[in-house]
């Protein structure tokens, strides 16, 4: 079933070679910026409900007022984030047509299948999120708690489905073509393609790391400022632990992914690992800037034969270089790819260290790290959310830029996928402006909420009745 328009047939079309759509660059920039924005909120949509649910469970089971208050406030935060996530995602699905009609017109009947399945989970997620968020105090406590379960489950399955669409672009399979038309489709083979098994868990774990890190951030800051109440400790510990537990699995799967890419998308691998020529005993570069056919001396360290070792467990492993395809079929900016990859790995390793650090202290003293090291630990904890976002975005840069110039690997060039509509620069400008404003506004709203809450946040046993500002009632 693995068929495609062969590599050269796509190139042979003279019209495509002569005039790649002028919209390609702005279209890519628009897709990248809207996805890069949406994905952060998507992570909160996938993983934050599970964290809220655990907190809510602690609150109900142990009658823990601090935990209940955290769960309640987090569900408010969720209300904002999920709304912005949902609308930015809707725009993405319109972008698929606005920016990539060449992809959708040709392969919509294939790539649409996982998106359709995702639709089921979007609906379930939206419905039960609303019931949970607005059901406080009005539904019986445990019934209310359980309305979050469908959200947690559909978050995971929804993520699986979008990533299935993306992994299909990396390893297209499950369809046949005749005369440039799709003649048959195997939905199962589309959904479970060769890149699914590592991309899906990698993204879902990434979402748990991002959500855990971001949720822990304000409480780490609170602890650093000396507000060591139970409320702040719990608010930091629970989400951070979730992120820390995900980390070793994430590293394992990332490692598997890299090895899979070495065989499935060797040119992507070559670019992210600086392998210009197919050879054995390939060194592994730590950092390094690529320029004029070599790594600029002094910018990186080469570990001899380590890349070969990582790919095939032996220094004699042959690693395919980018010399195997003509320059036009190589991804741009090897430096960007390589450094993004290194950054992602570095952050994964740091998260691992922080997780082990916390585990050791907890095991020995049932407490957070204290003293001067404790400050370093908490500072790292406060940065972990941002760091995980950076790692996730870097991962997507590796995936997406690394696949260029293909939209569907070895099947459809990005220049063939892009729209012919001439308005893309304008919509790009609007998109960037709007998402910049939305980023600021979302942070501003969260900050306002935090400020309102800080009045009571210090107390471990928050009993002080809270009266909302007068304007809120006028609404």
């Amino acid at each position: 079933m693995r068929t495609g328009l062969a590599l050269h047939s796509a190139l042979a079309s003279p019209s495509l070679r002569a005039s790649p759509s002028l919209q390609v660059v702005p279209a890519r920039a628009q897709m990248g910026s809207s996805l890069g924005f949406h994905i952060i909120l998507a992570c909160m949509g996938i993983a934050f409900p599970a964290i809220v649910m655990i907190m809510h469970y602690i609150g109900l089971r142990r009658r823990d007022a601090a935990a209940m208050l955290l769960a309640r406030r987090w569900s408010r935060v969720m209300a904002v984030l999920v709304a912005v996530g949902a609308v930015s995602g809707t725009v993405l699905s319109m972008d698929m047509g606005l920016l990539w009609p060449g992809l959708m017109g040709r392969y919509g009947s294939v790539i649409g299948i996982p998106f359709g399945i995702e639709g089921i989970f979007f609906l379930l997620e939206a419905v039960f999120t609303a019931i949970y968020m607005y059901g406080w105090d009005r539904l019986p406590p445990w019934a209310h708690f359980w309305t979050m379960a469908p959200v947690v489950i559909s978050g995971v399955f929804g993520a699986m489905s979008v990533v299935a669409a993306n992994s299909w672009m990396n390893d297209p399979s499950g369809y046949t073509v005749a005369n440039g038309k799709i003649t048959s489709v195997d939905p199962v083979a589309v959904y479970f393609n060769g890149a699914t098994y590592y991309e899906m868990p990698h993204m879902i774990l990434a979402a748990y790391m991002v959500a855990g890190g971001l949720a822990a951030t304000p409480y780490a800051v609170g602890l650093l400022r000396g507000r060591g109440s139970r409320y702040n400790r719990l608010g930091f510990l629970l989400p951070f632990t979730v992120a820390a537990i995900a980390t070793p699995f994430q590293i394992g799967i990332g490692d598997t992914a890299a090895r899979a890419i070495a065989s499935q998308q060797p040119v992507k691998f070559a670019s992210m690992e600086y392998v210009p020529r197919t050879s054995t005993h390939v060194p592994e570069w730590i950092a390094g800037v690529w320029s004029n056919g070599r790594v600029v001396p002094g910018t990186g360290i080469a570990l001899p034969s380590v890349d070969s070792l990582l790919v095939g467990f032996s220094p004699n492993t042959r690693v395919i270089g980018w010399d195997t395809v003509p320059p036009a079929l190589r991804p741009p900016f090897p430096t960007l790819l390589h450094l993004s990859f290194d950054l992602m790995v570095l952050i994964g390793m740091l998260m691992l260290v922080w997780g082990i650090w916390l585990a050791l202290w907890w095991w020995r003293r049932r407490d957070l790290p204290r003293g001067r090291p404790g400050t370093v630990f908490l500072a790292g904890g406060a940065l972990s959310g941002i760091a995980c976002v950076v790692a996730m975005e870097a991962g997507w840069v590796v995936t997406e830029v690394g696949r260029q110039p293909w939209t569907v690997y070895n099947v459809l060039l990005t220049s063939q996928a892009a729209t012919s509509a001439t308005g893309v620069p304008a919509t790009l400008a609007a998109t960037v402006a709007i998402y910049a404003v939305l980023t600021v506004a979302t942070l501003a709203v969260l900050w306002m909420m935090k400020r309102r809450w800080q009045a009571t946040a210090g107390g471990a046993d928050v009993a002080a009745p809270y009266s909302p500002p007068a304007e809120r009632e006028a609404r």
Partner: protein
Amino acid sequence: MIADIVAAVLVLVATAYAVLGGADFGGGMWDLLAGSATGGAAARHRINLSITPVWESNHVWLVIALVVLWTGFPVAFADIFTTLFVPLSVAGLGIVLRGSGFAYRAQAGSVRWQAVNGGIFAISSLLTPFFMGTAVGAVVTGRVRASGDPAGSWVNPTSLLTGGLFVAVAAYLAAVYLAVDSDRAGEPDLRRYFTRRALAAGIVSGALAAVTMAELRTSAPSVFTELTQGRALPAVIVSVLAGVAVLTALPTGVMWPARPLAALAVAAVIWGWAIAQYPYILPPRLTIAGAAAPAATMGAVLFVVGVIVVLVAPSFALLYWLAQRGSLREADEDGAGPPRRPAR
């Protein structure tokens, strides 16, 4: 055959979006027209209560419609989004602004911040359906094709009329639903307030529908014939009857049939349009069969729809039931104090 079924599903999903999501846009328009911060407070509060728990779920029907379109009829999807790049881009940006404005407003701490976000929410609630309507007008009149006119396709009398019609219909649905909700909550003043608006918007919608239809006589003669004399006529009749029934029921205070009848009046227009342009997905050339994806894909689409019916429909019913009972409201932030009594 299977392509026709998927096309019918697409129409039903679009209907769900129109009668559920459309009303949420309408709510934003009434918010826009509610007047000053103090004078409009009661109406805005009602709109907020009605929309808050359901708008996100309602809006997912749009996503489903897009996915069914691009999966089942990829060529049509590509042509629509290429030709109608401008109105659809604007609609997309409107969707983002509306949803975020609404969400920010709900958590806002100051009146000024509320007003700014409320304004963004309200204005984009007006623009988004208008531009969606212009796109539909372009399809009906056969202006969408592989290299359609990026401007003329949607800047023409039919498109502009359809855009206006979308706006009026959204306002109409919202006013009817809000009148019913006010009645249920025991707020007679607001019931009368929204009833008056429902009547006005209903009359405007009816008039605009008639003008648009008359306009189709020249811009899309075959659709016009089907609507006025052919197989789509029954749908038009149903729509008119349902619309008139709402207009007579509301002022007399008979509230229970208003919501389903108003929805039916709108749904029937959509069905009439679909029936009138059958077998074309993009008249005058691209047929449903001609644009259809391979059978296995269509099977997968129908499978997804089946799961939606089995799993999602009951969830939706639960959501609406809880929302109507008043069980879903923004909770008191920290759970301090007794919970507010559910509104009746």
